[in-house]
């Protein structure tokens, strides 16, 4: 290949998916160094390869993250100053990532509401010890009349904080986040985001019931749909 003999589109796609031999890579890269036209095509090929390589699961992670970022931005715009600062920190400092997060599906079933809940590691900030995961692995499912519930919990530790998520189906579905073992002054924000078309957001601050050592955030009267629940990163100045 000379400097005026361009690599084919096929070859640049192969360059992007790293399937060329060492010699071919070298030839392509040396050509790119001199050719603006092929530089553009190589940039497009590399970007395409990255997009193409993402699985549906990773696509879903991106969609949830975008939805959570948008929800935080929307809440930030209408929040009072103190709260606005915390939401801004959550959104920008952590790029919308949470201390812990889970996806929840409340589905209509013949005998009430079916619940599917699953921890979302992809929305959890790096370094968090709060990975919501059921002990048995996979998603938690529950179906039934009158409030059968699904429960997710972190692996228990006597020394670290932990969060639990209870999702109740039945006639009045609700989601409860319980957080144990955090210092008394800490009261993280908790967001419940509908990932259906409406993208409705509910924001609350976890409260400590009198005489207890844990925090509770509760979302009641939820319509059937899919949701993401996310807890504010604990290093965001959350009410301390």
């Amino acid at each position, binding site marked *: 290949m000379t400097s005026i003999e361009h690599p*084919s589109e096929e*070859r640049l796609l192969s360059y992007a998916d790293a399937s060329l031999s060492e010699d071919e890579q070298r030839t392509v890269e040396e050509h790119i160094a001199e050719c603006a036209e092929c530089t553009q095509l190589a940039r497009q*090929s590399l970007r*395409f390869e990255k*997009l193409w390589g993402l*699985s*549906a*699961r990773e696509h879903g992670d991106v969609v949830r993250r*975008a939805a959570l970022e948008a929800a935080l931005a929307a809440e930030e715009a209408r929040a009072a100053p103190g709260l606005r600062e915390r939401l801004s920190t959550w959104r920008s400092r952590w*790029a919308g990532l949470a201390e812990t997060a889970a996806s929840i599906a409340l589905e209509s079933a013949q005998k009430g509401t079916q619940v599917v809940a699953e921890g979302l590691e992809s929305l959890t900030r790096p370094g968090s010890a709060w990975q919501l995961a059921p002990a048995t692995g996979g998603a938690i499912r529950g179906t039934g009349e009158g409030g059968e519930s699904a429960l997710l919990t972190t692996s228990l530790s006597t020394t670290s904080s932990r969060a639990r998520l209870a999702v109740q189906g039945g006639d009045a579905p609700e989601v409860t986040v319980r957080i144990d073992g955090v210092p008394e002054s800490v009261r993280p924000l908790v967001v419940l985001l509908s990932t259906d078309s409406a993208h409705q957001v509910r924001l609350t601050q976890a409260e400590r019931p009198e005489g207890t050592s844990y925090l509770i955030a509760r979302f009641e009267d939820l319509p059937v749909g899919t949701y993401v629940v996310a807890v504010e990163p604990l290093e965001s100045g959350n009410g301390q």
Partner: protein
Amino acid sequence: MPDTAAELGDLVREHERRLYGFFRARVRDDSAADDLAQETWVEVLGHGDTFDPGLGSFWTFTRIWADFVLRRHWEGRRRERERVDRGPSGDEDHDFDAGDRPDVDLLAAEDAASLSRALRHVLACALSCPRPPNEIIAFGFTKLEWRPREITMNLSDSTLSHLALRLERDYAALVPDPEIAAAFEPLREKLEQTLADLLSDPRSKRAYAHVPDGPTGPIALEAYFAPDANPESTITRWWDTVKRAVFRQLREQGALDEAQSGVGRAESAGRKTDGANP
């Protein structure tokens, strides 16, 4: 590391054009590529005592540092974007360790909203690309992380209509994007058409000459496998065909320029190629 400055100079000269090409393909402008190449040489020379020819070539050593420099560059871009997001009253002095953040790469430097739009668009292009539905469905199941072997073993006797429904349902369960359903509409339409309706080029028509006549939907996936080829290789070939069709479509739309380079849509008509592929 080479013993003399002259030997070192020879090595750098040997690879400098390639290193610039490596960066030029990966960053938004040529001056940034030049800066990153220079930064890489500084790292390479500064860490020369760790180069062991027994572990790899000088280029391999240089690439390790080039990857490091590139990741640092993308992390910087992301920080810059976040500073802009925070605005002038934001916490400018807040210091954080890049190690606290998720992996940074070409896509991670983009914001989630634009990446989400790009992924939706790629999916829509794939589901509507001018290829028969069996190929598109094979692509779809690989997106669901099915391997070609798993597809041939578990899905071969299912009809395309059944597989399309399953694909849509499973994709929607993983991707909570209400606009995804509309992206599947072109695939649903293809299932009511015949291969004769869908294929125009003689080569594709020959490749599917063995498939029964009629709408594509009620025909089992295995009927589309080439009689004289390994089904797993066929799945891989279908996936690759869809990939190339989508790439061409996105290029024509200029959709791959959006967040990456800002480079215009220079048309490549009349390019003289190396002829590696048609």
